[in-house]
Structure formats: C-alpha cells, structure tokens
C-alpha cells in the first residue's frame, strides 16, 4: 500500500492508457449493443427500414401469448435440467472412479475431457448421422440385433427429438463436471476417509456420509455452472434440428434466430427477436452474477 501511494503521483495517464483499448472494445461492442438490444425490444423493425416503430411493450405482450415461446422456454428448462443432471451424475461417478487412482486414471481423465473441446457444431452433425433412420448407428445396431421394432427416426419424431439432442449434449460435456469434481475430491483430507475405513464403513457408505457432504460446495458450483451454460444452448439445436420438427425442439436462442436474420424467410423481426434476447438476459444475467458471487472470482488465485 505504501508503495502504491508513492506511485500515484508519478504515473500520470499511463494506467489509463493501459485500460483504454479494453474500454473502447467494451463500450462499442458490448455495452452499446446491450443498450441497443433493450431499445429494439420496444420497437418493431425489419432490419432494412430506416425507421424503427416504437410499440411499447407490444413485443413482450405478443411474446407471452406466443405458444412457440412457451415451448422454447419449456425446452430450455428441460434441456438445461436434464443436461445438468446427466453430466453431473456421470461426471461425479467418473470422478469417484478416477479418484481411486485406478491404473491409467490420467489417460482416462484426458480421454473423458476431450469431447468437451470438440466443435459443438461438428459433434452435432456427427450425432445427426448417428440418429439417421437408415444408416444411423442406433438404428443399424437395433436392426442387426433383432430389435427392429425400436428402430426410430430419432430426430424426426417430435416425441424423441428433444431427448436425442439432450443425449448428444450429455455425451459431449460429462467430462467437464468430472474435472471440477475430481479437483474437489482431491482436496478432501485423507484422514477423513481413513477414519471411515477404520470404522468399517463400506465404500458406498463413505461416499454417502463423508465424501458427498464434504463435496457439497463444489457440487453446488458445478451444478450452477452447468445450468447456466446449458441454458444458453444454440449450436447443438441449430445444427441438429433447426428447432424442428414443427418447433418441437425450439429453444430461446434458436427461436430468436428463427424470427430474425431471415432463416425462416421474411418477415425478419429484429424487434421481436431482441425481445427474446432481453428475456434471456433477464434470466441469465442475475443467475450468473449470483454464481460469480459464489465462486468469488475476485479472490481467485492462479
């Protein structure tokens, strides 16, 4: 502190110059766009016309009576709940196994994490082929084992499409909670586990009564992170189904794109799309802020 006070008088504009580039980026390409999105959500605009028509809360009124919006919101909740549940359960199981340091556990860990790094759009396209009714892995496998009656156009059937998309996401991202939980497990002091062992507790009992309670905080952080992350889903759904068939796999992000940018043909409604973006902001922003409070980013150590 002492030295910093001394420096204050000698540094002048230098520190301001250091933050200037970042500040310009943030002002022009983040803060201004956020304001513009909020502004647009109260207007009607096709993206081409020079004038935007102010319609008050008209977009919001329309949105809340739009059945597709409710389907999309329901799918977002379903998607993020099931993806979080699936990835955290599998990730926890894998972390518990690897924490026993079975032979080759580092190799397993690295293998499990790799899909997380892969391009979402490419993995989605690959899984679209796995789900193909004719040459997809699942159906070919079912047919070759005599289970023909279960063969199915997984992505084409409104009843299974959303679930099929979720399975792909769980497959790709289970490695992520695994890494965080593995670090959490490593920080549990050995004496706790040894004491439980001396008392004759079985492994499952140790997990239930010793490990899980001690892992509570890390688990909460992992769940929160996965919920927020998967609520933002766009790539997977866009690449696999475009939100179809018949809007049954629509999520907020894909619906926002469907009503704007002309992907579904005119009219392009940027006001209405911004209104959807605003709703997403209202959901995600506070959730993430609370999460950041939880993990105390400011006190993070490298």
């Amino acid at each position, binding site marked *: 502190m002492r*030295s*910093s006070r001394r420096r*204050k008088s000698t540094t002048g504009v*230098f*520190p*301001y110059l*250091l*933050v200037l580039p*970042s500040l310009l*980026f*943030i002002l022009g*390409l*983040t803060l201004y*766009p*956020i304001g*513009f*999105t909020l502004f647009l959500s109260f207007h009607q605009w096709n993206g081409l016309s020079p004038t935007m028509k102010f319609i008050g809360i008209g977009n919001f009124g329309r949105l809340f009576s739009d059945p597709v919006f409710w389907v999309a919101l329901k799918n977002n909740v379903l998607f993020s709940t099931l993806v979080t549940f699936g990835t955290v359960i*599998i990730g926890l*199981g894998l972390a518990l*196994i690897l924490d026993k340091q079975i*032979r080759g556990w580092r190799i*397993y*860990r*690295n293998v*499990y*994490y790799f899909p997380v*790094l892969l*391009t*979402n*759009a*490419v993995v989605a*396209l*690959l899984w*679209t*082929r796995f789900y193909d009714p004719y*040459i997809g892995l699942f159906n070919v496998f079912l047919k070759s084992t005599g289970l023909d009656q279960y063969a199915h156009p997984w992505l084409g059937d409104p009843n299974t499409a959303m679930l099929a998309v979720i399975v792909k996401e769980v497959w790709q991202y289970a*490695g992520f909670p695994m*890494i*965080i939980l593995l670090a959490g497990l490593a920080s549990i002091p050995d004496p706790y586990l040894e004491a439980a062992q001396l008392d004759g507790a079985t492994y499952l009992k140790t997990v239930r009564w010793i490990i899980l309670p001690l892992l509570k905080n890390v688990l909460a952080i992992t769940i929160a*992170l996965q919920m927020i992350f998967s609520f*933002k889903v*766009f*790539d997977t759904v*866009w*690449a696999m189904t475009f939100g179809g068939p018949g809007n049954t796999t629509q999520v907020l*992000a894909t619906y*926002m*794109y469907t009503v704007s*940018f002309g992907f579904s043909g005119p009219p392009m409604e940027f006001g209405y799309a911004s209104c959807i*973006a605003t709703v*997403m902001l209202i959901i995600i*922003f506070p959730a*993430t*802020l609370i999460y*950041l409070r939880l*993990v105390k*980013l*400011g006190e*993070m150590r*490298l």
Partner: protein
Amino acid sequence: MKNVGKYMLHAAAIFWAFTQIYPIFFLFMSSLKDNRSIIVNVFSPPGLLNIHPENYAIVWSGEYQRITVGRYLLNSAIVTSVSTVISVMIAMMAGYALARYYKRFFSILSDVFLALIAIPVHAVVIPLFFIINNLGLLNTYPGLILPYVSLALPFSILIAKAFFRSFPKEVEEAARIDGASEWSLLMRIVFPISRPLLAVLAIINFPFFWNELMFSIVAVTSNDMKTLPVGILAFRGRPEAEPRWDMMFAGMAISTIPLIIFYVLFQRQIIRGISVGAVKA
C-alpha cells in the same frame, strides 16, 4: 469381494472411455470409406484395397458442391490466432492496470468487467451484426475478430488481474529504481515473465474462438470467408438424390484434426486451466 469392486470400477471406466472414443474413431473410419460402403457396411472399417484418402482432397479443394474445407480451415486459423493474440495482449494490459494502480476508477471498472461476464452472447448478437454491417465489415476477418475480442475480454481481464495481484512487486520496484519507464517496465520485464498467464488466457480463448458459431453464422455469408463451424454445416441436409456421407465425414475429420493436435500438445495445461475456466459460465 474387494477385487470384484475393483473390476467393476475398471469396467465402468473402460465403458465410458469406449463411448467417448468410438464416435471419434467412427468419424475417421467413415471418412476413409466410399459412399456405398458407408451406407451398406455401417460398422466395418474400409477394406484394405478400398481406402479413400482422396475424400479429404475433394472436400479440401471444393470439387464437391463448392465446399472448400481447406479455405475454411485457413479462415478459422487466421481469425482464431489473431483474436487470441489481440485479446490476450490488451487483457494483460488492462489486468495489470487494475491490479497495480489503486484508484477508484479502476475498482469501478473491475466491477463492470465482472458484471459483463454475466452477459450472454445472445443479448448482444443482433446489434453486433448491424454494427459490423454498418462498418462494412461483414464477410471480413476484422468483422469476426473485433466482436470475438470484445466477447472474450471481461473474463480475460479479470484472470489477468488476479494473476498480477499475486505477482511479486519486487522486480518492478527494482527496475523502477533503475529508472525504467512504466511502459518499458511492462513490455520488457513484466510481460516476459507472465508466461503462465499468457498460456492460461490463450488456452481458454482459443477453443472458444475456434468453435464459435452463433455470431459467425450471421456475420459470414460468402463461401470464401466461412470459418469451419459455419462451413461444415453446409454438409447438412443437401436436397440431392444421394447424400454424400463420405464427403461429410471427410470434412468433419479435417475440422477435428487441429483440435486433436491442440489437445495432445497442451492437455496438461488445458486440464489445469479448467479450474480457472470453470468460473466462466
């Protein structure tokens, strides 16, 4: 009894490893088959005399449906590397200032950056499209790089700030006494010994830029400027008589190879960086 449990753990570990590896193996296996054997013998590897590496050459150069994966790869490499360099550089500068100079303005700025981490891309993507359009930057590299840098900045800056907070000041003090200017101090002493920070920032940002789809899909429409995620989606659902699976698999294989190389080279740093990356939602 104890052994049974151990075998079960191994079995579970192997099972999940299989489910993770097989799809990637399947992708590469299929990319070397001809279209007919992909359809007829879904599971079998290509016969020894029936391997088709030319699939790669065809999708690379645009002989099929004008899909030029080689070009997409180049675009992705340029956009990703330039975005990474710029974002890391200016995030380090800002992070250093926020960590070292105790002024009210900087503590407010820190809070602003923290809050901005919580902003989803969805909330800025429509205006970003129009800003880039008004600047005449649609279908250009800067048109992708500028928004990417701004999206990566808040998180990168706060990581850099945390790094410099825990960074000993003695070196700087000594250099200052020797009469070094603030700028040369930063460029010649502080940044060169900040390699660990550089690595973490690059490793977190690189995959994000490489895989980004939501903005690039609207900011890039010309075939010559497509990045891999955008370009690869061109293989999807072509309304033609016979879908060319061989082409699609080869295209996906090409776009996956750089990530495999990246992972093999940096897996230790990547795994370690995740505990940091975990903060990013």
